[in-house]
């Protein structure tokens, strides 16, 4: 059983701030973390490894500093780590990213055949959920998104049964491996890194692949050139023409402020008053 887990290093978006005056992103000092959704995928892969044996390889594409994310994954118990990094990948959109990752997975597959590819359901910086499906299509693998549970895995028969979150319910699906699974959050919790694995992570020689070693056959399918989408404008949201009417009273008494607010609001929106009264009755 060989599982490749695709992860991404992302800025901790909870700590990104916009400069109040210039409206630009303040990126200094924002820590880089492993995309939290990917940790659920990694944990699920490690559990399958515990149960069925085999190896877990973590893969990421990004700048050289993304190596830290891979070391983190090794400390949790992943066996191998590959960083795909090359200037030609800069500016890749999701289509170009899926091409580079699919090429790298094909290379990994040459050393040790890949049975499953896992990813998180989406990243917290792009939020697109597109790269997983893209990689599956490029590798002609069965695609199972939003999987909440792996019910059964038969390595001999190359069959897997999973529960997939869909609109209004859970689909139970059976498919053959190799397949690509995007793992839903919240159904497992990342284990603690053991001392042994932390030592291993610090010494582990992460495989660093450039476009040649990653098996990229067509450079025009990567980076800006290989990206159909272009960002034509980045801008701060426009405030409403009229700002909020700040409720003020002679005193700062919460009760007085509240009563004044309701009086003003319901005078302007009488329909709202009726509706709330009706439903709360």
């Amino acid at each position, binding site marked *: 059983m060989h599982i490749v887990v695709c992860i991404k290093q992302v800025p901790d978006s909870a700590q990104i701030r916009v400069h109040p005056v210039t409206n630009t992103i303040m990126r200094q000092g924002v820590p880089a973390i492993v995309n939290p959704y990917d940790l659920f995928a990694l944990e699920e892969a490690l559990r399958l490894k515990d149960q069925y044996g085999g190896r877990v390889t973590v893969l990421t594409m990004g700048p050289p500093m993304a190596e830290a994310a891979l070391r983190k994954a090794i400390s949790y118990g992943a066996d191998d780590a590959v960083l795909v990094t090359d200037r030609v990948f800069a500016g890749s959109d999701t289509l170009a990213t899926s091409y580079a990752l699919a090429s790298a997975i094909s290379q990994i597959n040459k050393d040790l055949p890949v049975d499953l590819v896992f990813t998180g359901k989406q990243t917290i910086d792009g939020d697109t959920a597109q790269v997983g499906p893209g990689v599956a299509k490029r590798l002609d693998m069965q695609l199972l998104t939003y999987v909440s549970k792996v019910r059964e895995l038969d390595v001999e028969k190359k069959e897997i049964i999973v529960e997939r979150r869909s609109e209004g319910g859970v689909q139970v699906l059976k498919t053959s491996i190799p397949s690509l699974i995007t793992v839903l959050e919240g159904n497992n919790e990342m284990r603690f890194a053991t001392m042994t694995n932390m030592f291993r992570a610090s010494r582990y020689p992460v495989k660093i692949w450039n476009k040649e070693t990653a098996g990229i056959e067509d450079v025009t399918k990567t980076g800006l050139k290989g990206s159909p989408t272009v960002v034509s404008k980045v801008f701060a949201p426009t405030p409403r023409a009229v700002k909020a009417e700040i409720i003020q009273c002679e005193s700062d008494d919460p009760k007085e402020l509240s009563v004044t*607010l309701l009086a003003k609001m319901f005078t302007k929106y009488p329909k709202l008053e009726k509706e709330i009264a009706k439903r709360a009755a």
Partner: protein
Amino acid sequence: MSETTEAKKPAGKKKFELDDRLKAYKGIWVFIEHERGSIHPVSLELLGEGRKLADHLGVELAGVVLGAPGDAVRSFCHEAFFHGADLCYLIEDPLLADYRNEPYTKGLTDLVNKYQPEILLLGATTLGRDLAGSVATTLKTGLTADCTELNVDLDARSLLATRPTFGGSLLCTIQTLNYRPQMATVRPRVMAMPDREVSRTGRILEDKLGMVESSIITKVLEFIPDEMQDKPQLPFADIIVSGGRGMKKPENFQLIWDLAKVLGAEVGATRPVVQSGWVDLERQVGQSGKTVRPKLYIAAGISGAIQHRVGMDASDVIIAVNNDPNAPIFDFAHYGIVGNAMTILPALTDAFRVHLATVRKAG
């Protein structure tokens, strides 16, 4: 999942000329999503938005319906007409009874290759995201996820797809220039529901799927429907009371629940609050949670970062309570109280209780 959008150069001001082979792509398509016998409302919302784009470009608006043969799929075509579509492409096949990636990807991809639409819109649901990512990769075209605004650039006949970026602190407009179709997904409740006009009709164009069950590897063994009763239904709630990090402690969140109870409202929260485990994930409002459009939205201890704003600023009336007079939430709320949410909320709850009792007595 790389979107190193900051590394990209702007498209520039020089006049853009579309490749000749792509000029044949005409018309706006909306994928009509349905599961368990009814259309997902997001598809109808997209028809409303698609209608505007189609009128702008002077082209037709089409719905795409895939499903098992029967009256249901035909009625979905008519619903699409009622909500603005001029025509519907329909593939009926027993293999399409349940959603599976492989047959749905083939069906939609084949239709696109045959009829060549310039824009293809899908709902950003679990189904829509699964399908959109697969179809876009198969067609090798651009796809923009979770758009909050759609427009067209008439010169380039290009879709202007706007979405939040950088963890939601800014907005960016994304274009797919020399690739067709231009694909985008939009989350439920982001666009307004268009009027349903039952007098509207349209044409149905039927096609074949051309697959056999034995060629489809993934099988559906079972479908376990969700138990509906205790799941919060934020996207369709009329009144929502939400709390943010400014509530300071999980215990203080009780004040949010108290106010919600008096109003018969749902409780919402920001991402940090959900990540801290104070409330259920289902209650997260914002770019990575639910998009809501209630009649009244009360935001307590919420600063109003874009990440949250895009999920709720279509609310009819917004009340913000925050102790920071410069918090961005006051830029787009309708009413604001500057003060400590922990003292304002109980007073507000009381004021609503008294006021509503009076109204009820009078009415």
